[in-house]
């Protein structure tokens, strides 16, 4: 009988053990971590929305909603990568006529080679069907969405503003800027599409200093700042006057919900999917990948070393992993559902830890990665003192993830 029992149990186990291969679509219960891992550095910036780090300048910038005009918290980082002292606070400019309306940063991006920070901001505004040429929107036409700061030893200095007028929508909670692989084209979100609820995108050619320039001048390698006559990125700030290229997307707002620069095409997060954009015959060509049976606002990040991009569908438990080649989306996605979690904000790829971090309410989820960038089916959850974790930035050389939280532990 004992033999029979052991044989039966063995057979039962053989038929009931789960398969070793991970299904393409899977649900996983996150494993709670008792303590935040050592690679996570928390910085206290309440109501934070976005963050960016520039290791070469030892600078961490966090953008936040603020009632007292303190929209950017600029941290100096010490040699150990930890914030050295209290941050410097900066207010984002807006027209005086909009003084009673709250503006807020949605995206921060350092140029990978140049000491330049691009900030995308938005402001509370009339309903979306009362914008563009509507009389109620007149005061918003002077609002500048794009702010360009020079990174100087003394801190950040505003040098140019751009992206205003009827071409852009206001009052959105998503959208950021992106640079192409060469760092010569700056893509902007939330431009006006063909209808009031359709998002477009826009882009500027950049000169050698990372400032917008007319396309023909960029092609000729010209810069608006003449060498020897004026110092680069002079201490004046001006509105850009160069031409902006715009393109409708046929999708709802927000557009530009995360960008990844492939060698041949840009990939952009958007409504219910992502878009690959390349230039053909002088124009921007869009190819949309739609997220299977699910609909919603998707925010995107790309793996810097592997052919993988990650789409976090906002306020859902779903993270999509898609393969890409040179920026063109490929094959079927992996779809992970983290049980009991509502994902928020942009994914951040942690190359040294082989994980993707995505914010959520009072926590960060860490999705495990295979060596090729695919999801490995494991998810860890770190509880943090913040109502909503959205602002994260990763210092790749130091292997450190900065997370903005509402209060200290």
């Amino acid at each position, binding site marked *: 009988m004992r033999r029979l029992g052991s044989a039966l*149990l063995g057979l039962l186990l053989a038929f009931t053990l789960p398969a070793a291969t991970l299904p393409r679509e899977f649900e996983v219960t996150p494993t709670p971590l008792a303590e935040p891992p050592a690679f996570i550095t928390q910085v206290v910036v309440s109501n934070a929305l976005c963050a960016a780090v520039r290791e070469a300048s030892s600078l961490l910038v966090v953008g936040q909603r603020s009632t007292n005009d303190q929209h950017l918290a600029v941290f100096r980082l010490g040699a150990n990568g930890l914030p050295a002292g209290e941050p410097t606070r900066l207010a984002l400019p807006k027209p005086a006529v909009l003084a009673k309306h709250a503006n807020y940063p949605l995206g921060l991006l350092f140029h990978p080679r140049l000491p330049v920070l691009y900030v995308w901001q938005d402001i509370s505004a009339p309903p979306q069907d009362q914008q563009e040429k509507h009389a109620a929107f007149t005061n918003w036409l002077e609002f500048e969405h794009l702010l360009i700061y020079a990174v100087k030893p003394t801190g950040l200095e505003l040098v140019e503003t751009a992206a205003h007028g009827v071409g852009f929508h206001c009052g959105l909670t998503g959208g950021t800027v992106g640079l192409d692989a060469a760092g010569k084209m700056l893509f902007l979100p939330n431009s006006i599409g063909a209808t009031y609820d359709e998002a477009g995108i826009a882009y500027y050619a950049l000169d050698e200093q990372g400032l917008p320039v007319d396309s023909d001048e960029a092609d000729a390698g010209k810069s608006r700042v003449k060498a020897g006559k004026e110092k680069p990125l002079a201490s004046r700030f001006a509105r850009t006057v160069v031409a902006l290229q715009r393109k409708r997307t046929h999708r709802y707002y927000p557009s530009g919900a995360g960008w990844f620069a492939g060698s041949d095409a840009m990939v952009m997060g958007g409504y219910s999917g992502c878009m690959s954009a390349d230039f053909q015959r002088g124009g921007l*060509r*869009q190819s949309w990948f739609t997220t299977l049976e699910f609909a919603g606002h998707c925010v995107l990040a790309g793996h810097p070393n592997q*052919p993988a991009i990650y789409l976090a569908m906002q306020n859902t438990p779903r993270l999509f992993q898609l393969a890409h080649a*040179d920026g063109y989306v*490929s094959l079927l996605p992996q779809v992970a559902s983290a049980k009991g979690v509502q994902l928020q904000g942009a994914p951040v790829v942690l190359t040294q830890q082989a994980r993707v971090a995505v914010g959520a309410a009072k926590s960060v989820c860490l999705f495990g990665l295979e060596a090729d960038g695919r999801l490995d089916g494991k998810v860890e959850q770190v509880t943090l003192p913040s109502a909503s974790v959205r602002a994260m930035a990763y210092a790749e050389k130091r292997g450190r993830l900065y997370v903005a939280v509402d209060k200290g532990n």
Partner: protein
Amino acid sequence: MNVSHSTHRPQTLISNRLQPGGTGRCELVSRFNGFGGASRKPLKRLSAFTALNTWLKPGANERGNRCLRRLAIWLLGPLLAFLATTASARTITLKPEAVDAFATLSESHPRSGWAAQQIDPTLFVSNPPIGGANTSYLVRYSFDQIPKGNRITHAEWVVPVGFAATSTVTVWRVLAEWGIGVCHQFRMVHPKRLEWSVPGARGRSVDRATKPTGSGKFEPGMVHVTVNVTQDVELWHGGAAPNRGWLLAFDGPCILISPTHAGRQQWQLRVTYEPE
């Protein structure tokens, strides 16, 4: 199974700790040895059983033994029923969840592996998939659900289509390996950039088989075509050829039901198999 008939010398399969002598456990383990021959591999597989036998040692855990006996009796019936059913032919339907790779090959956007529906010269979308003379699709199923040790006796693939389609769909077995970055121009871009012998996987006997697997004509009112794919599935499942999926080619425009979006359950691959 009597191990004395084996030409191999039986290996010692029980550790010293589990050789009390006279318990009969050696006999049990030797029978398991017969399943695995004389290789070392079965030894690892047996570790769970030997550990279980230790736990079942008389007097060591009488209450546990009683429970186990009851469990064994209770499980015996369903197990025998299960084994009886596996001895006969079975048909399973592979749904789109079993599709493990999918791609679009579009001559009008030779680098896109997803978006083939052209809205205007600068906009392509992925859903619904539209087939045409210059747009075809690659679809690969995983056959993990079919147990090993079975042979395929019949397989048919149901390809659903939108209304008013009148084109002919031709199913080809794909020969060339494809992967990340597959598109009209390339069969893969990562980890290596490789082109099709003829763009769009059109190279006969190189990119795709010499002869098509089958074909069907969509006609008004017909919501799907069914193609006999027995030979291909048999080749793949039996290991005679690597599974590189099918190419769906069209002679005219037609809107397919997407195998990856709403309505995808209409895609079905019915496979009948029986023990070899």
